[in-house]
């Protein structure tokens, strides 16, 4: 047994309202730079829908992840190492910018510079790649809330796998949201396909990162990741990905997406797993056994045997205790309500999901039944097989029994807790029907319904008793790093040369540059683009508001008339 710790996340889909707060805050923190305009480390998809990038789940087309070869051995879907090296000069299957979307901004300047005219001036969209005017035809979220259905939803690769008659009903009845980040897989195919070995998994917490100094821009990882969560920074020529907000997690704070999630539906914690069993589990022949296989490599943190092995492996006491309190472990292995996203990709993903029950309850209530009566719910889950098939394609490689089991647990929990809330005696038979005890149900309800911050996020500190100088406990000077000061610019070979600038520093400079830029849509330098999405409301970017016309003096006369000259309203029309 070789024990390793792995940081993971569980999202409770019932609570996601599709507000995209997580995506926006993540973008502000990490991908608010040119070169990654099109990149969303966190995105929220409406299902059914094509996803982002379009139809990324169709692995016949995109060839991401692993497969079991004819010899029974695990192999990247793109083929052998030699084959991939021979194809390195032009990757056969790599999503192009159009599969994501062409990023754009607006010609805001025309709004303020346009001469007096009959019609209101319009800010036209301009491509951020070419600076030319463009038509907006797609985006990261074009089919949000089933926009464009049914034409667009037809191409949903998951929907394609379930039968035609079910499909139609599905489109009339349901939708739900699927927030996605990098899965920080236990068996990451992105890392396995990187020719330079620049993508690595951290021994301490399993976070998967790209070493920006070792990445050589071979862009094989983009194809390798089946979730398409590796993005190519087209400006620096390097791959970038979700970092699990490691600078925050190291000091015990949850990721930005979790911290800001409106539904408070994200849970973060660690699990212990047996690294010796990963390959065997990932090579399980039948896709449908992969869920069980992945659960089987997770170790019980209360088992004395495991604790001893963990200590031998150098995992510290507080980490083991965190693993014991881990909400992730509880949801995955104690309550068994969380499921992995697409286990059939065989990367052993570590962001799991509690499938949504609400469509069933809503549909039931619409038909005039009591949506929270346990008999009704169980019946409905069985008969309304529609979302179950779809959910099964997402979370269990098509095994509907597993999904039904989870949905029953969630339904039973509602019924059981309703009795308690209404002061009725607990109905233990509800608990036995799903193979749990009343105590389990109450614990699960607490974790899903009322858990506070410190129960939802059990994040052990990284072991570096550093005190000051850590990213978020900011007491040091932001210029104190290797090549600083003088950062924010590029090295001697123009764009993209020189040491990599810490993202926080780059963002700071970009914001400062934007706020003082005098052009809007197409400034000469790409790091001065003004994008209203990125404007934090502080300060007024030059040109955002019309400057005071020179001739206003004439209007008021030199000594002022009407409003006094000193009045701030006249001197500075900006907020």
């Amino acid at each position, binding site marked *: 047994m070789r024990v390793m710790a792995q940081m993971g996340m569980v999202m409770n889909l019932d609570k996601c309202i599709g507000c995209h707060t997580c995506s926006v805050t993540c973008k502000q923190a990490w991908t608010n730079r040119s070169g990654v305009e099109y990149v969303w480390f966190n995105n929220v998809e409406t299902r059914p829908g094509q996803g982002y990038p379009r139809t990324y789940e169709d692995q016949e087309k995109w060839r991401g992840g692993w497969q079991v070869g004819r010899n029974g051995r695990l192999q990247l879907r793109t083929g052998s190492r030699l084959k991939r090296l021979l194809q390195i000069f032009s990757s056969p299957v790599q999503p192009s910018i159009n599969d994501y979307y062409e990023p754009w901004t607006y010609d805001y300047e025309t709004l303020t510079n346009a001469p007096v005219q009959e019609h209101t001036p319009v800010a036209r969209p301009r491509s951020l790649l070419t600076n030319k005017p463009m038509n907006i035809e797609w985006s990261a979220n074009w089919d949000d809330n089933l926009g464009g259905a049914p034409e667009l939803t037809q191409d949903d690769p998951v929907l394609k796998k379930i039968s035609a008659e079910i499909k139609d009903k599905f489109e009339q009845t349901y939708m739900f949201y699927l927030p996605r980040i990098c899965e920080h897989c236990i068996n990451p195919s992105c*890392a396995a396909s*990187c020719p*330079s070995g620049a993508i690595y*998994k951290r021994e301490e917490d399993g976070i998967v990162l790209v070493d920006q100094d070792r990445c050589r821009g*071979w862009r094989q990882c983009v194809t390798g990741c089946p979730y398409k969560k590796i993005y190519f920074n087209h*400006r620096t020529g390097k791959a970038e990905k979700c970092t699990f907000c490691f600078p925050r997690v190291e000091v015990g704070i949850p990721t930005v997406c979790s911290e800001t999630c409106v539904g408070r539906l994200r849970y973060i914690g660690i699990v212990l797993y047996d690294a010796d069993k990963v390959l065997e589990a990932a090579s399980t022949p039948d896709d449908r056994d992969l869920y069980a296989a992945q659960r089987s490599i997770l170790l019980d943190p209360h088992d004395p045997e495991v604790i001893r092995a963990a200590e031998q492996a150098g995992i510290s006491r507080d980490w083991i205790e965190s693993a014991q309190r881990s909400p992730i472990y509880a949801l995955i292995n104690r309550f068994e309500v969380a499921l992995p996203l697409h286990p059939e990709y065989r990367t052993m993903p570590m962001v799991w999901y509690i499938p949504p029950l609400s469509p069933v309850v809503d549909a039931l209530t619409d038909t005039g039944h009591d949506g929270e009566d346990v008999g009704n719910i169980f019946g409905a889950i069985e008969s309304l097989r529609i979302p179950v098939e779809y959910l099964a394609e997402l979370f269990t490689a098509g095994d509907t029994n597993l999904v039904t089991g989870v949905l029953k647990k969630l339904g039973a929990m509602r019924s059981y807790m309703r009795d308690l809330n209404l002061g009725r005696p607990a109905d233990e038979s509800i608990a036995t029907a799903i193979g749990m005890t009343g105590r389990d149900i109450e614990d699960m309800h607490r974790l899903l319904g009322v858990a506070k911050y410190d129960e939802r996020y059990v994040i052990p500190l990284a072991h570096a008793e550093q005190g000051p*100088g850590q990213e978020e406990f900011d007491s040091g000077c932001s210029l104190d790093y290797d090549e600083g000061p003088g950062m924010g610019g590029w090295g001697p070979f123009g764009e993209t040369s020189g040491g990599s600038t810490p993202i926080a520093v780059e963002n700071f400079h970009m914001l400062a540059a934007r706020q003082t830029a005098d052009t809007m849509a197409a400034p000469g330098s790409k790091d001065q683009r003004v994008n209203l999405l990125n404007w934090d409301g502080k300060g007024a970017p030059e040109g955002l508001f019309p400057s005071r016309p020179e001739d206003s003096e004439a209007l008021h006369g030199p000594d002022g008339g009407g409003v006094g000259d000193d009045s701030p309203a006249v001197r500075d029309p900006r907020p």
Partner: protein
Amino acid sequence: MNALDILLWVVVPYVSLAIFVVGHYWRYKYDKFGWTTRSSQLYESRLLRWGSPLFHFGILFVLLGHVAGLGIPKSWTNAVGLSEEGYHAMAVVTGAIAGFCTLVGLAILIYRRRTVGPVFSATTRNDKFMYVVLTATILFGLSNTVLGALGQEGVDYRDTVSPWFRSIFYLQPRPELMAEAGVGFRLHALSALLLFAIWPFTRLVHVFSAPLGYLTRPYIVYRSRDAQLGTRPVPRGWERVGGGRR
């Protein structure tokens, strides 16, 4: 032999090679972040699909050809019984095919650079200059091969260019040999020397990170977290326990 010859065939080569070597060392040390292919496949792949493999496989063969033609003395091939005509036929045929592939690939790449909007916007001045020098070198080289095949060529380059090239590395340069070589060869050599001098400062550095290690390394790379947390160096007196001695 005059001063110009010494300048062109002794001074320039050494300066160029020195820049090549020291430049790579320096760039690797100070600009690992800039060391990348800067792939443009995200913008466009239909043309790249043809251009890039044609160009790359072509140029790698051309490279092999140069190693053989410049590195292996005539006496060696004679010794193994390869006749003059036989050697030339082989060199000219493979050289012409590889060179032609390279040229077509290069043409497609340059056409793509110029006509595909996003690729053009992402082309830096550095790229343009590199492309000019690279294209010139390839054109001069290929024209030598073609002229050679047509029998237009005066002196056998294996009696002039190759010994001169090797003499540079023996540190006993023989500029007089180059003075005898044809104009085509001299131009080709000069543009190549210029290419070597700018090489470390362009995207061509990616050649030196050709990922051969990939064939043997384990699939998944594990790495311990950096001793340093966050992006800042540890302030003095706050080193990790046990970390200061590493």
